[in-house]
């Protein structure tokens, strides 16, 4: 019953070429993340007039960085369908929590008449 044998179904690289290819990707993503950090701080000093644009840009950069970490560092890009399903439901429920709660605030009589 020993599980020492390497399964052929293991999705992660075993051959040296694949490993060094992955390492190259990790380094590129690392540099991209650093650049993204500088960009986000730099853009902050531009002081856009529109609040929506400020928030939008900051979140956009953050989402791009997060996607890189998730896809490449966390190997989500080559992960199995079941993980996507679990994460899909999670994101949906988080969105529901945020959107429905915000809506119930925004729908208060005082919110819709005086503001």
């Amino acid at each position, binding site marked *: *019953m020993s*599980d*020492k044998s390497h*399964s052929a179904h293991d999705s992660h690289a075993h051959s040296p070429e694949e490993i060094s290819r992955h390492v190259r990707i*990790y380094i590129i993503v690392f540099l991209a993340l650093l650049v993204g*950090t*500088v960009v986000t701080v730099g853009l*902050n000093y531009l002081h856009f007039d529109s609040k929506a644009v400020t928030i939008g840009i900051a979140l956009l950069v953050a989402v791009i960085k997060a996607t890189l970490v998730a896809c490449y560092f966390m190997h989500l890009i080559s992960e199995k369908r*079941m993980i996507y399903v679990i994460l899909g439901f999670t994101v949906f429920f988080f969105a529901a929590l945020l959107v429905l709660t915000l809506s119930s605030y925004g729908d208060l009589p005082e919110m819709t008449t005086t503001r």
Partner: protein
Amino acid sequence: MDIPYTSTARPDTGIYNAKVGIWLFLASEVMLFGALFSSYILLRVGALPGDWVHGLLNIPIGTFNTAVLITSSVTVVLGWAALQAGNFGRYKVYQAVTILCALGFLGIKSFEYREKFSHYEVWLKNPVTVKHGHKEVKTDRVLGHIEYQGHHPYFWRTKTLADKKVESFKIEVDPYHYSLSPKELAHARAESKGHKHEVLEIKSSDVKRLSAFTPSHGPYFAIYFTLTALHALHVLGGALVIFYIWGPGAKMWQTDPQRYMNRVEVSGLFWHFVDLVWIFLFPVLYLL
């Protein structure tokens, strides 16, 4: 019967047990931090104009801390890749860097926290005239560092003035206030660069409220400390687990290398999640 699929992947799902476990756990963590982010949004949207604090965190330090965490994130995955290639020594070096980065992050965070606890806001009963940049303004809210009997105190609040029987205290006033727009705030900061802060003498009887930038100051610092402290606890926890696997638990590399690599991968996934949270925390709390 032994428990199957601890090391090898189950054929129909293609994953080993611990990986399913950690992704499920990370899903719950998304909901945890998601709820806190949602609370941040609701509190901010519900704040009265001029009441929501911004621009008081040190951006260069925060940026550096972000870089530290990103570095630790790449070293943790490079360490795993080294293990995949069979290079245990290189893995050990990378993970050591990861742990050092984690400790660095926590150290810098503690320094940031400490700095806030001796920085104050005073709400006055009667407005005073102070400078925001070069402009003179009349305001009943000033920010700054308190000086009393030769030292700079921590954690004073309104009650402290009565408890410690303080008649009056000095405050080195900041040449800006968070009720300014981000543009005005940056402008005021730039204008007053290099100039000494003006010092005001304030009588305790004139103070409506006094608070350091602690969680009880207002909703912004409440959510800032809660979010960053919870995140820091996750950094600490993750670092401890990575350390255990790196140190005391390293024997498994000899006895069951596949399972050991799985442990490294799973703890790495947690670590990346912690980095992910910070990727959102940093702009939201420091920049917006």
